[in-house]
Structure formats: structure tokens, C-alpha cells
């Protein structure tokens, strides 16, 4: 089974490469890269950790599968002692006081963090252009966006600057950049991985997600990061997914949303390729069913209403009092206002203002509460669907990546480009982007907590498409 992690592990064990050399090469490649994927590199700690691994190998000690594997971290995760900027002006000098649970689990397994990665500021964007570190350039065509918000992470994996990277997915922020850069990206079931230490955007859909070049590597990293965490009470107990369990597919029925492919907004080539994929799946003896679903504009509006309300609340703590780039003014309230006005990007301000609008008296009933009701209806719809089918597949995006500069000019178009990813976020379902099927990949979704089935079908598609 293809796996970058297994391959490098074997090279380390066989002493074909030293861990120090491996880490140094990756750091050099990251620093020299022109895709704007890097917010900061973690040279000293990474080299020190690599030396320890080399020492262990030289002493004939066994090393774990992830020991010595260099990885990247989206710059919204806390890693003690490193700057965690959220790609924002406000936090450009902020230093993490503690380490996120998901990252700590990877450190405990011996993986080596080498870079904090560029992304849309606070996760606010679908192109990784909303950042103080320069727009992330697509790995395949640098004139195009890297996707977002975990754009730097997806490009680093695609370019082999990191073996895997850890992104955050609230409405598609792992899956869409994975699709745009032709790699794998998983949004696990909400609650499978602890959010402790991930800067909150919209807490009810925020997920930690791995990006990698193979299904096997996604499985390995997912297993390490999963599990109940007392510091995030929405987490649940999950079983580790064994390698053998995803090797053979027993999936009998697959569904797809008719209205996604019949939409006027979809690129004709993506539509054609998606329908051709359906035919290939049918040819393998799998029954494919057309399913009804909510209109794309309702999905996008429901998602953004709830996400903006939550981000307005989550980001209200960022006022420059205890940390951040405080700008003092004549009194406390004025200091808050000037600090936030000067340090938040236009997109972040747009979302905070939108969130406060829908939470205001007079608006909350007809917008926010209705959004919550719609989310419940969407979740119910999914439950019914998964009584009919094992897996739902869909395109990742209606269109190919836009040129750098275009998304910032038209925020509504950017919101609507999330049409195929946000529904699965609202349903809190496990969804994986595979770099197959269409120019921007395919999404594979299963019922809640059935992340194993998603990986199983991805493995099956690897040989089918």
C-alpha cells in the first residue's frame, strides 16, 4: 500500500538517510519556496529532535512509525513556544503558551514539526489570500490560488515540503485546498479529534484534519490524533482504524446529490468527469442512487450565518488587552475599537459584523434561529440518506481554482464556491477529498463516526479510477 510515512520510516531504519539530513532538506526546501506557504520554520527544535532520533537509530533502538517524520502545522494551532499568528496582523507576534492536543499526540508519537503554515487569517477565506504573509500560490499552477483556508498546508504536502500537514476544516478548509492541489485531505467526524489548542473560528463545525499524499498516511495520522479529550468535551471515544480493515471494500450502494451536478454554477468539465466517475463505479457492480438535497445557496447561507455568528463571539476576546498588537487610545473602549479596526483584515471584519447582525435583537429570530433549524433539517436529511446508501460522493468544488486576486474582489462568489463542502460540515460528517475523478477531486462521505468506511471507499477508488 502506497505510503510516504512507511517509505521514509524504512529509509531511516535502514540508515539510507539520517533524520537530521531529512529534516534539514525539508527546511531548506521550505525556505527557498516561492509559493508563500511558510509563516515560520521551526529550525532549532526540529534539528534537535532529529538528532535524538538519529542517536536512537545509531544505538540500535527501534523507532515508531511516526518517529522522525517531518510535518507541517497550519498557523492556527498552538505549539508551545512558537509564534501562532493565525496569519493576522493582530497576532503576528503572539507566542503559544501551550500545545494543542492533536499536535501533542503527534509529538508524543515522535513526529517532528518543522513549519507553521500560511492560511487565511483566522480561517476566514477559501483561497489563502486573506493573510499578512502573501497569497499562497497553487502547487500545480502558481498563477492560481492555493485554496483555503489551509492553503499553505496543502501546497506543502503537494510539493513534498512536508510529509503530511495538519489543517483545520470548518466549512471545507482542508478538503478544498486538498482538491485544488491534488492531494488527500480529511475532515473527520466532528469530535473525533480534540479541538483544544485550535484557534476557534466556528466551534460547532471546527475540525482538525490531516492532509497527505496517500490514504494510508491519512489513516496513520488520523489514528494518532483521534480520541476523547477532557479539554474538549465534544470529543468522543473512537476505535483505531486497522490497516487491514480498509483494504477490501464491501460497499454496495453509493449516492450523489442530483442538484449538485445539475447546478448551472458547475464547470462543464467537472460535471462531465464526475458523471464519468459514476459510470466507472457502476461498472464495478455498485448500485448508484440519485439523492435529493438542499439547494446550494441555502447550504452556503446556513453555513455562513452560523459560522459568522460563532466567529463574532469567538473573536470578541481579541481586543489587545492581554495579548495581541494593542493600540492604546484615550480609554479602554476606544483602545479595543482601534486595535480591532487596525488589526483585523477586511474579510474578518465582514464576518464579525455579519455575525453581530444576526445575533442582534430583531434579526436573530428570522436569521440565526432559522439557520439553526435549517441545520437540523440538513442533518436529518443526511440521516435518511444513509439509510439508503453506504457512501455519498460529490465534487469538491463547482469550479477550478481562481486566479490570484479574483476572490478578494468578489466575496459573495467566494462564499458560493464552498457550495459542495459546507453541507457535510453542517452534518458533522466524515468527508475525505481524494485527488481523483475531477480536476479538483472527489469528496467521499459516510454517516457520522464512520470514518473507516470513507477510507475504505477511498482505497477502492484508488484502484478503480
Amino acid at each position, binding site marked *: 500500500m502506497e505510503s510516504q510515512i512507511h517509505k521514509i520510516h524504512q529509509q531511516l531504519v535502514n540508515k539510507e538517510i539520517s533524520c537530521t539530513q531529512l529534516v534539514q532538506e525539508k527546511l531548506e526546501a521550505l525556505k527557498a519556496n516561492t509559493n508563500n506557504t511558510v509563516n515560520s520554520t521551526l529550525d532549532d527544535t526540529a534539528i534537535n529532535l532529529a538528532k535524538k532520533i538519529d542517536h536512537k537509530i545509531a544505538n540500535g533502538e527501534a523507532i515508531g512509525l511516526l518517529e522522525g517524520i517531518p510535518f507541517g502545522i497550519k498557523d492556527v494551532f498552538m505549539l508551545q513556544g512558537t509564534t501562532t499568528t493565525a496569519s493576522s496582523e493582530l497576532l503576528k507576534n503572539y507566542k503559544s503558551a501551550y500545545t494543542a492536543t492533536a499536535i501533542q499526540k503527534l509529538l508524543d508519537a515522535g513526529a517532528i514539526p518543522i513549519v507553521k503554515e500560511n492560511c487565511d487569517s483566522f480561517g476566514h477565506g477559501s483561497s489563502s489570500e486573506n493573510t499578512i504573509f502573501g497569497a499562497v500560490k497553487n502547487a500545480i499552477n502558481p498563477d492560481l490560488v492555493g485554496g483555503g483556508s489551509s492553503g499553505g498546508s496543502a501546497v506543502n504536502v503537494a510539493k513534498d515540503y512536508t510529509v503530511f500537514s495538519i489543517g483545520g476544516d470548518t466549512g471545507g478548509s482542508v478538503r478544498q485546498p486538498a482538491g485544488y492541489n491534488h492531494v488527500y485531505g480529511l475532515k473527520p467526524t*466532528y469530535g473525533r479529534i480534540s479541538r483544544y489548542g485550535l484557534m476557534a473560528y466556528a466551534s460547532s463545525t471546527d475540525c482538525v484534519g490531516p492532509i497527505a499524499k496517500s490514504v494510508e498516511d491519512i489513516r496513520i495520522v488520523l489514528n494518532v490524533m483521534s480520541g476523547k479529550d477532557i479539554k474538549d468535551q465534544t470529543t468522543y471515544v473512537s476505535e483505531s482504524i486497522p490497516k487491514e480493515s480498509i483494504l477490501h471494500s464491501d460497499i454496495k450502494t453509493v449516492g450523489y446529490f442530483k442538484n449538485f451536478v445539475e447546478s448551472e454554477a458547475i464547470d462543464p468539465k467537472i460535471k462531465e468527469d464526475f458523471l464519468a466517475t459514476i459510470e466507472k463505479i457502476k461498472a464495478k457492480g455498485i448500485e448508484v442512487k440519485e439523492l435529493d438535497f438542499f439547494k446550494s445557496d441555502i447550504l452556503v447561507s446556513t453555513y455562513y450565518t452560523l459560522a459568522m455568528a460563532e466567529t463574532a463571539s469567538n473573536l470578541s476576546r481579541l481586543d489587545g488587552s492581554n495579548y495581541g498588537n494593542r493600540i492604546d487610545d484615550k480609554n479602554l*473602549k476606544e483602545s479595543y475599537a482601534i486595535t480591532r479596526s487596525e488589526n483585523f483584515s477586511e474579510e474578518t471584519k465582514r464576518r464579525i*459584523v455579519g455575525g453581530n447582525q444576526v445575533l442582534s435583537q430583531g434579526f436573530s429570530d428570522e436569521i440565526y434561529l*432559522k439557520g439553526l433549524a435549517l441545520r437540523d433539517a440538513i442533518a436529518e436529511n443526511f440521516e435518511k440518506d444513509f439509510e439508503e446508501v453506504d457512501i455519498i460522493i460529490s465534487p469538491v468544488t463547482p469550479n477550478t481554482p481562481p486566479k490570484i486576486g479574483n476572490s478578494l474582489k468578489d466575496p*459573495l462568489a467566494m462564499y458560493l464556491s464552498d457550495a459542495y463542502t459546507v453541507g457535510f460540515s453542517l452534518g458533522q460528517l466524515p468527508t475525505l477529498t481524494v485527488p481523483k475523478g475531477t480536476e479538483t477531486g472527489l469528496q467521499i462521505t459516510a454517516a457520522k463516526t464512520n470514518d473507516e468506511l470513507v477510507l475504505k471507499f477511498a482505497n477502492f477508488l484508488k484502484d478503480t479510477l
Partner: protein
Amino acid sequence: MSKIMTVDILSSIKGAQPSEAVSKLFDVIKNAQSTNNNSFNNKGNNCVSLNDLRDDIVVESSAIEKQIIIENFPKEKNGYLVVSKIIEE
């Protein structure tokens, strides 16, 4: 409180105005038909069982954590951490 607060005050962002793009999203919600108007009785909520709550104890921060929290504080004078002038209304 009867005082009407505008979004710039609510958001603590000077000169903030509602955006046209976002208003278009809200219009879609206003016009949508929802089959279920009771949003609080459903499974979309992630409830924690009373038996599963974490212990109500104070966890001491490590020395390094405390040190970094102090380092992150924007202003320091004569060993004191300085906040902006607080006004009374």
C-alpha cells in the same frame, strides 16, 4: 436595555457597516422554507452527559506557560503589566 447599538459598537470596529455580500446570504435564509422551526430539541446539539463533565478543579499552569503569558502581554512598566485606561460610565 433599550439603547440601540449599531454593528460598529457591537463589533468594536470603527466605522463598520453591514456588507452587501453578507446581506445577500441572509436574504436567502429569510426566504427559505424550514420544515422544523424548533431548533432546540434536536440532535444537532452536542450535549455532554452530566456523568461525563470534567472535574471542577483548578489546574495550575506550568512555569513556562506563565512566563509566555507574561511575554505576550502588550505593555509592561516597572515590573507591572499595564492595561488601557478604564473609564466609568
